[in-house]
Structure formats: C-alpha cells, structure tokens
C-alpha cells in the first residue's frame, strides 16, 4: 500500500476523528450505566462522576429485580428476536434467490410486490392485524409477535439479499449445474455461503427494530407471560417515573442482551467481509 496512507500524522488524524465520534456515540450510554449504579442524590449532584464507594448504590437494580420478572422478559425478547431473525434470513434468502436467479413470468412484479413492504410500515395495518390475531387465537402469544416481525423483516431482507445475490458469479452456479447439483443444492451449498456477509448485515438490521419494538408487544402480547424487555422497561418508566435509579437500571439491563447478540453477529460480519466472499 502507498506510503501516504501509513504516515503517522495522517493516521493519527484519522484516529482522532474516529475517537471523537466514538466519544459522541458512547457518552450517553456511559452516562446511563454509571448513573444506574449510583444513589439518587449522586445522580443529580454529580451526573458525570463514576460511582465511588460513597455513592455506589444498587437500589435501582434491587427495585427492578424485585418488581418485574425481568428474567422472563429477557427470555421472551430473546425467543422472539432469534426465531424471527432465523425465519427472515431463511425465507428471505430463498425468495431473494428465486428473484435474482430465475427468469419467470411475473418476476419483476413479484419483486415489486415484495419490495412494497420496505416502504410501508407494518404498523399502518395494526387494527386489521389485531383482528386477525384475535380470530386465530394468537393474542398474547409469542407466535403472534414472531409472525409480525418476520413479515416486517422479509421485504428488506429480500431487497438487500437479492442485490448481493446478483453479484454471485453465474459461472459458478452453472458449473454446479453441470456437475449435477439440484437447484436446492446450488442455493444452500453454493450461493448461501457466498452471501453470508450480507446475511449477517441483514440479521443485524432485522434484529434492531424487533428487539426495540414497543408497539406490537403492547398491542398483541401485553400479558405478563409474554412481555418483552422493551415493554417491561417502558412500563417500569411509567410506574417509577420519579424513581430514577430503577429506570436507569432497567435501561442498562435492556442494553446488555442486544449487545451480546450484536457481538455474535458482528463476528460473522467481520469474518465474512475479510474473507472477501462478496467481492
């Protein structure tokens, strides 16, 4: 690589810019977490101070863990998110492959039909969705949430994945066909491994709105047994609006699992990108 890129002044300027933005990105999160470990007075008197032995206080976490069944909420959120992502990735990749690989009558129309869902928020159909779920007896089940989130995630997944699948070389697929692979084998054994980085990207982007959604848990599954973490925290803020310790602790707890999910997927993302599979 060229010498200009590795010059120390230049690279330290780059690092400076990146560090500056990293601080902007992390500061509010940092603030939430440090204050969740402090006593109420310390939160207000010294919001920027890290917890010291004098101000350290777990009362917020005690309230959260004593009041709400957060272990169950985590479990619910986790089940809903993981199952929905799996369904979006599998069904989305299959449909994207059909659209990008085969010429058939109605291909463009089908692509447009599926792409319509990228632009329309599924929320606009909430009333009819609720009616449907009531009719199907799925209200207050995680299945209802999984169905809605799968439908919500599919259009974008298909859009992004078919963009990437068009870049997979035709020669490779045709070589597979000449070797007698079925279309299913070509999809699962040749194409799917090659678009893994795109799949990881889609997974990350699908995961975020699902994990953070407040709307559908509130409407479709507000019962105690099916509450998600976001809904649990929201109800907490409603009930404990003046109990800052409890609210900050609940919010800190809500950040944790999504971070873990992200780290898992982001490894896949990095591995895929660095192996150059998309090139």
């Amino acid at each position, binding site marked *: 690589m*060229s010498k*200009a*890129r590795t010059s120390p002044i230049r*690279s330290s300027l*780059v*690092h400076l810019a990146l*560090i500056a933005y*990293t601080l*902007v990105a992390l500061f*509010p*999160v940092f*603030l*939430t977490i440090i204050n969740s470990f402090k006593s109420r007075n310390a939160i207000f008197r010294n*919001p*920027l101070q890290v917890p010291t032995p004098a101000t350290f206080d777990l009362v917020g976490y005690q309230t959260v863990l004593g009041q709400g069944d957060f272990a169950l909420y985590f479990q619910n959120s986790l089940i809903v998110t993981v199952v929905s992502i799996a*369904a979006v990735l*599998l*069904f989305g990749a*299959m*449909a994207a*492959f*059909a659209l990008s690989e*085969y010429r058939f009558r109605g291909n463009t129309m*089908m692509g447009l039909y*599926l*792409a319509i*869902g*990228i*632009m329309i*928020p599924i*929320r*606009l159909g909430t*009333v*009819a*969705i609720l009616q*449907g779920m009531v009719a199907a007896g799925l209200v207050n089940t995680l299945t209802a949430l999984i169905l*809605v989130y799968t439908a919500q995630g*599919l259009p974008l997944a*298909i859009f992004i994945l078919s963009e990437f699948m068009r*870049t997979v070389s035709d020669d490779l697929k045709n070589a597979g066909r000449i070797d007698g692979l*079925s279309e*299913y084998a070509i*999809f699962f054994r040749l194409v799917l491994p090659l678009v893994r*980085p*795109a799949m990881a*990207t889609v997974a*990350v982007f699908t995961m*975020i709105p699902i994990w*953070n959604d*407040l709307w559908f848990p509130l409407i479709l599954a507000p019962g105690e047994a099916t509450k998600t973490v*976001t809904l649990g*925290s*929201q109800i907490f803020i409603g009930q404990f609006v003046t109990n800052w310790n409890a609210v900050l602790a609940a*919010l800190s707890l809500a950040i944790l699992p*999504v*971070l873990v999910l*992200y780290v898992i997927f*982001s490894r896949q993302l*990095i591995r895929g990108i660095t192996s150059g599979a*998309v090139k």
Partner: protein
Amino acid sequence: MSQAELQSIARAEPIRRQIRWHILVFLLPALVIYSAVMVLPLIETLRLSLFNVVDGQPAFVGLANFKVLFGDARWASDFWNALKNNFIFFVIHMLVQNPIGVALAALLSIPKLRFVGFYRTAIFLPTLLSFVIVGFIWKLILSPIWGVAPWMMDLVGMKSLFAPWLGRPGSALIAVSLISVWQYVGIPMMLIYAALLSIPDEVIEAAECDGVTGWSQFFKIKLPLILPAIGIISILTFVGNFNAFDLVYTVQGALAGPDGSTDILGTLLYRTFFGFQLQLGDRSMGATIATVMFLIILAGVSLYLFVIQRRMRRYQF
C-alpha cells in the same frame, strides 16, 4: 439422425417447459407470511380510508375523508404542520446523517487501520438502543436542570450558547432530528463500509499506479463505485423518516410539543388513530392519514426505483 433420437428430443421438449417447482418452493414461505400478516391488513387499512361513520353506520364516503384532512379547519393546520416538520426531519437526516455515515465508513475502510473493530462497534452501538433509552437519556442530557449539556459546553467555552433546545418551538425539531441522527448514523456507516470493502484491491492499485490517491481517489474511484449503496441508504432514510414515530413520542410525548413543533406524520397518525387525552380515536381519519403516508412513501420509492436506480451504473467485478 435416427428415429429414436428424434423421439427423445421430442420427449425432452415438454420437460423443459414444465413448471419449475423449485421457484415456487423458494418463494412460497416468504410470500405467504408477507401477504397474510402485512399486505392484507394494509389493504384493509387503505380501504378504511374511504369509509366513515355516518349516522352511526359505517358508510362509503369516497374521498371525503381526504377533503377534510387537507381542507377542514380542524384537521388541515395539524396535517400541513406535520407534513412540513416531517420534510425538515428528512432533510436534516440527509444533510447530516448520511454524509457523516459515508465519512466514517471512508475512515474505517483505510487499510491497516488499527482498532477498526472497536470503532465500528462503538459507533454502531446507539443504533441498537431502544427509543425508550435514547429518548430518556437525551432528555436528561439536554435538560437545564440536570446540567450535563451546559457543563460540557462550558468545557469548550460555549456555555452562553446553551438553551433548553427541546423546550423551544424554534429548535425542538432540529434537536429531535439530531438525536435521531445520533442514533441511526450506524446504518449508513455499515452499509457504505461493506460497499467500500467490496471494491477490489486491483482497482485501487490501478488507481495508485496512475497516481490517483487520497481525496481524489475517494471522489473519483471509490465514490462512483459505492453510489448504488448511497442510493440504498438514501431511500432507507426517506422511508424511515416518513414512518418515524417512536423517538418523537418518547422525547416529546404524543402531543409532540412544544406547541406541535415536533409533530410529524407518525405522531399525528397515533393521536388520530388511538386518541389522546380528550381527543377520541378516529379509525377512519387514522386510516386516511395512514393512506397519505403510504402515498408519500410510494412516490419517493417510485422515484428511486424508476428514475435514480435506472440511471445508476453498476459495476460487476
């Protein structure tokens, strides 16, 4: 050619025309879930916008709901205000979020840069947070009572410029938009970053052999190659902004204060559809606003698909 061979060709012909079941198998699961859970309820909502309650009975009223929304004194000012705010919301995202996203991606994709993984994870982190936490924490930071923002501005000697931005009609919308930018800058960054990494080394090396490096390399070589990705992030931003609701709701409440200055179509829809405080929920007018949002978004996406994307050149490596 023997008779047998001719016969076998004749027999092979219908096999080629056979229905390719695998296409159906690939499409079916996505198609069924998508149609049943998303498209049909949406169509039902669009249909509702043409109905209203007349004398206690649901009745077909044609476009009367739209006439009320655009022209009636009770609705029109709220609607046009929300539309204008939503447009400003979008413009701020395009001018701030996407350039920052591209710039960060360009920095991150510099070869042999250290700590890339850390920066990427850190900058993407806010995108993972729920609106509940983002809204709450920024409200606290910008609050004059807690005093974090004034203290920080004091560090750079600009304390006198501090104002309770979220509480002033003139600045609240900009403040909320920038909070949203802060939260979502990770998405353009990631997409552009992936696009930049997929540019083959040979292209960059060829540019370097021709003496094209640094800034001119970015603008002349890399930028044209990532234009499709920039097109995608632009349309995603447009769609996301005209669907936005949660952040305004968590920061400013359903009334989108102060004085409706942060009211966007999403919050207007929410108040209309489900009612708020003394206002009763109105299903038909809610469906009407939803239909207008649908049409706006449809117009934007059509522009992208049929005009912008068609003109864009694609390179296959």
